[in-house]
């Protein structure tokens, strides 16, 4: 191999490594890092109980049974707040926000243990940063049905997009801020109950 060929090979290796392979490996590491434990859901708890073959009426079981309706109620209340905020977006605003979802920066609270999920705190933060602290009561949701093909995360991302891209009028922003603060409170309550449940289940499985 002459020196030019060697240089060409070296440059090729560098381009392949630094341009493609390295970033690809980093992406995979990053993605695997973001994978958390199995999402917490009522169904998961039931599945876990069945998997462990524990069907008796122990004290722990009773505590779980008591907590489940509370969780369900909180989930419903959260859904209502999300839909109430979503209801503030007109069809035109909704479409505009939907188109701009892809232009949102990475979620700041993606792996933040302080929060239940990253979008609601991002809505609060961006509302504060863009519109300042101004709140006004958010009326109850007129409609609880999500648009077809959209889950709660999609709906929240639309709201975040509307806030981030300054599509809301100040009055709407004040209601969104109030709604997202209330949503955050509900989520915090849910986190506390879920943490208790996890502890009960872990204790149960180690006993």
């Amino acid at each position, binding site marked *: 191999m002459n*020196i*030019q060929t*060697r*240089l060409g090979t070296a440059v090729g290796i560098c381009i392949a490594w630094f341009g493609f392979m390295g970033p690809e490996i980093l992406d995979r590491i990053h993605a695997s890092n973001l994978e958390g434990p199995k999402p917490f859901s009522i169904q998961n708890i039931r599945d876990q109980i069945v998997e462990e073959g524990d069907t008796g009426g122990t004290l722990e079981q009773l505590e779980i049974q008591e907590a489940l309706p509370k969780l369900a109620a909180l989930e419903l209340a959260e859904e209502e707040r999300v839909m109430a905020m979503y209801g503030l977006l007109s069809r035109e605003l909704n479409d505009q926000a939907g188109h701009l979802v892809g232009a949102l920066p990475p979620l700041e609270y993606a792996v933040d243990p302080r929060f239940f999920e990253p979008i609601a705190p991002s809505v609060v933060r961006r509302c504060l940063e863009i519109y300042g*602290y101004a709140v006004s009561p958010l009326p109850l949701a007129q409609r609880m049905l999500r648009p077809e093909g959209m889950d709660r995360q999609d709906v929240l991302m639309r709201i975040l997009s509307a806030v981030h891209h300054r599509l809301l009028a100040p009055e709407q922003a004040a209601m969104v801020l109030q709604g997202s603060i209330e949503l955050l409170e509900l989520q915090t309550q849910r986190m506390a109950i879920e943490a208790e449940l996890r502890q009960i289940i872990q204790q149960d499985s180690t006993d």
Partner: protein
Amino acid sequence: MPAHINSAIWGDRFDAWTTLWLIEHLGERISSLNFQAETTEILYPIGYNLWSFGHMALQAIGAFLVVLGVPLVTSYNLLLIGSIWTSALGAHALGFELTRSHLSAGVAGIVFASTPYLYAEAGAGCIELVAAGLLPTHALCMIRLLRAPSKSRMWVAALVLAIIGPFNWYYTLFAGLFAVGFLCWHLIETGTQTLRKPGPSSKKTGLKLALLSLLIAAFIDAPLIMNARRETPKRPSVSAELFSSEVAFSEVRSVTNGAYPLEDVSAEVLQRVDAMQVHFNSTSVRALIDGRFESNPLQSTPGSLAFGVGIVGLLLGGRRTWGWAGIAAGTTCLTLGPFLNISGSLLLEKAANNWPLPYYWAHEFLPFFAKAYRPYRICVIASMCLAVIGSIGAAAWMRSARRPPILWPLVVLGLVAFSQPHWSGDRPAKRPMANTSVDDAFVQLAQKERGGVISLPLHYQPVSTANARTQYQQTVHKHPILNSNQLIRWPDLLRFKEHVQSNEALHVFVNLSRKATPYSVSSDAIEDLINQNYRWVVAQRSVKADRLELAGEMVTADLLPPPAWRLLNSLFGAPTIDTQSTVVWDIENHQESAQPTLENATGIQPISLLFDPIATGFPLVLAPGQTLPLFSGSAKEFHAWILATDAVANLSLRIEGQGIVQEKPIEIEEGHWQYTSVSLDGSGEVDLTLVGRGDHATRIHITQAGVVQ
């Protein structure tokens, strides 16, 4: 830096402030020809052994500059710049020895002096680690010795290795590590047959003299090693179980945050903390591949540029580079630490447990190797080898048949390499320099009678930048201080604990910012402090804020809560010095009483806000005229710690009560937590509201808000 050479430093971690203190202290020692190891200027009155710093030669050079009249901060900055230059020159000299070409040697100089590792250590204030030029210089001496063995070259190699010690014991070990690797490679290249041949040969002589040079260096440094071991006392074993344990992780985090109860701190706990440091200081696969400039030195590596130049050099230089490549690969492997950590997560994944890496065996079984308890730092040897490989490759390119030009590619390489801090990773060059000015209160304190100073809150770890500055402030007021950044070493921390626990007042002062009431201090305890020649207590109403997202749970570590201020005023009366930012009390002003002074936060009602920097980290943004209702009810005083995040912040407190509305402006300073205490002129029912004022939105963080009823 040139514009602020005497008023700011590059780097804001506790090591930077400690280094400034050490330079100044050594300067005083040189002036007074006092070369005792013990000092009571920090960790007063129990004292601190200067050998525990482990590295004083570079700081001593700074001290000489100070003695010659160069200002302290200028000396620090000159040392930092000089360290990078000497690293470049050392690598250049090594490259020149191997290639006999200044142009190809330039590649080595550029690559070695532009590695992210050096900039991360510089940003952390560890300037003795930036001064890495002696490593290539020692490698150069070894090469010269092996090429043309002579006793004079052996002595030079031994002396260079020996002199690295006082500068930096890590690098002594690393240089020894390199030398062993290099001799092994030399042995393989020479072949056993050559060595077995009877009669003298220059290769055999070279190997013998090289080994002898290592032994002589060890012999020269031997008297210092016992003292140097103070810096790194007995190190515990490491294990994957420990690194994967959530309980151990929480415990260690709590200790390093200074939140772990001091009374529970024991040698066992602190050794666990030390053991965990090995894991925290190991390079992850992610960081290695990323190879960018990171603010956190723990994530620093030789960098993508060094690896890229190494790959090119390896292919161009061919066989001549193999030994260097072998050492680079070996040392890079050692930087990964005892167990493979792919993502860089703080808690080691369970899967890594079964695969101990070479570092683990070396740490556990090689004498003195545990000194290298920060594995990532071994990358300095890998950087040196990659730089050399690049240099050899450049020489091969220059001497190829067509004799292509190298000057312009070298200039481009230099521009790319040295501009990296401006665009790569965390872009350290964009980081603002740390202002070294101190509050006027410390200048006033210098005029007062001599006596020990206790800066509050008293922490046993340098938990924040503001706290770490305490040691630097000592260079201004010159009184001995109890506080010290050096309690990161466990034997000193245990001595501190014993001292603090012997006095009720000191015990209360530890972590006072995060300690729950009641606080109780007796007059006997204060009397005891006076008998120990303590005289001054310092607290700050204005605290330089660390970046909120990095400070995490330590945000409030420096912020004394209202009951603490009340306790201090009750204990020591009116402050002797009060500059609004800093308050100094004279301990001798304590009024003796039979009953202990008790503070149990009576009448203080906290106000819960969404904007707590720990709970949510949400900023409070108030456009002009926007308001945040705070409190309704009976109150005499409002208080809070407020941090303005921009210069245009303008805030006032609206007080509505008994038909009267008044607004009191709140003084805030950008980048500083400011303790705000507003008297409400009465005890009736009031509505308190924060109001954004001025022409722009006011961005703040607010914590510990409350009222006194």
